[in-house]
């Protein structure tokens, strides 16, 4: 046992502990008992990990009543440390007056820091619980609005979590 850089040896061992062999059998008993305990493994494709609401998966845009909440202020794009987000604003007849005509997140660049979610004044971009991100090309990894939009019902858990913890 090493502590404070000094070797410490247990001095008051009993004769059984010094003989070492009974201690080995104690260890073996522990190892055997582990065999019958349940395993922690997820058999992945059949059995999937369901993340908690606090999990930071891929960022998505919140869609409320068929329209995205985003007002294309561009704050997320400015705060993104990996420069993964690109926003292009345009005007709309709706009350919010502005909307993103183009909203792209490059998922190869994204580092899942969640700054975009934190900085967003409209709660329009949040981190989802999706973690299966596989691409076969660079182009495929750039997610446009079609892939980013998600309804409030789907994101209920995360939105609730954000309200309670911010």
């Amino acid at each position: 046992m090493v502590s404070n850089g000094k070797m410490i040896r247990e001095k008051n061992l009993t004769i059984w502990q010094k003989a070492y062999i009974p201690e080995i059998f104690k260890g073996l008993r522990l190892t055997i008992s582990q065999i019958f305990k349940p395993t922690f493994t997820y058999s992945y494709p059949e059995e999937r990990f369901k993340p908690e609401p606090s999990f930071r998966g891929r960022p998505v845009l919140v869609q409320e009543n068929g329209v995205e909440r985003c007002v294309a202020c561009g704050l997320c794009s400015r705060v993104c440390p990996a420069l993964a987000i690109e926003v292009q604003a345009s005007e709309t007849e709706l009350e919010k007056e502005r909307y993103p005509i183009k909203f792209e997140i490059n998922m190869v660049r994204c580092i899942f820091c969640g700054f975009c979610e934190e900085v967003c004044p409209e709660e329009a971009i949040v981190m989802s619980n999706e973690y299966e991100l596989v691409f076969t090309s660079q182009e495929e990894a750039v997610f446009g609005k079609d892939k980013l939009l998600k309804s409030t019902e789907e994101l209920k858990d995360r939105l609730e979590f954000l309200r309670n913890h911010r």
Partner: protein
Amino acid sequence: MDNVFLISVIKFVTYVAVVLLAVIILGWVERRISAFMQNRLGPNRVGPQGVLQIFVDVIKLLLKEDIVPKNAYKPIHDLAPIISIAVALSTFAVIPIGNTIELFGSQVKLMIADVNVGILYMLSITSLGVYGVTLAGWSSNSKYSLLGGLRSSAQMISYELSMGLSVIGVLMISGTLRLDQIVLHQARYLGGWLPAWNIFLQPVACITFVVAAFAETNRLPFDLPEAEPELVGGYHTEYSGLKWGLFMLAEYANVITASAVITTLFLGGWHLPYVEGLGLPAFTLSILQVLTFCVKLLLVILFFMLVRWTIPRFRYDQLMRLGWKVMLPLTIANVLVTGLVLLVI
């Protein structure tokens, strides 16, 4: 004469097929059991419960490119894995897996080579095993391989002494070098009920022999020749493809052989206690004895695996201190005490 030759051929072919298959299956058993001990699942995808996983692995190894380092000494680099596997498999030849059995109208001894110096043969063949490891380390021309090879030669030679000396105790009480006679000697009862297995007659020799067997097979508490954190892969760092696979097979073959020797010398071999009085037919009894041997063998192998995940690796100086300062005096004392007791009785 022809009949004897035919029976020898049958025995040999069966032996090679069964042991090689067992070696391959053992690779899967070890991975699965290790996984359970660590609360994991282990390979369970290929075939039922993943049994075929290890066959797939062997096919992969066969298809891999065989890379030989530029400065390696190629003839010996090729020879070393062959020595390892040949030595590991040939020890099994003298192990009796059962008593005599009636086949084709003649009594057949269930061992391949019925040599009268069985124990000597076993000890000398296991001591050849060190050549495979040492030559592999030396011929690879890499410092990690060389260190692994050197360590293993020092370790195996140190522990061979206590291995041989602990066998002497068994030798003295049974008075023969023939392994089948040693098993027959154990097929008695002490005080009418306790089987006279050498584990009860020679407990100290049993413990020292098992420890020495662990050191000889380079299994975990003593696997310094391939200690990953220090030596990359040890003596087989520079091996790839099938040659590496042969080293892996040799390791498992060594485990099987060592377990078989432990079973034969200390656990009564094929002796199944308390069935002699039941009056079973001879053939049934023979089959039962072979099964008994297999079960005992399996239990010892499982013990090897249990120890692997229980006891951490020894430091090199601890290994040498245990070998020379504890094991050697203990075995010599055991021989002396056994001699005295035999003199008094």
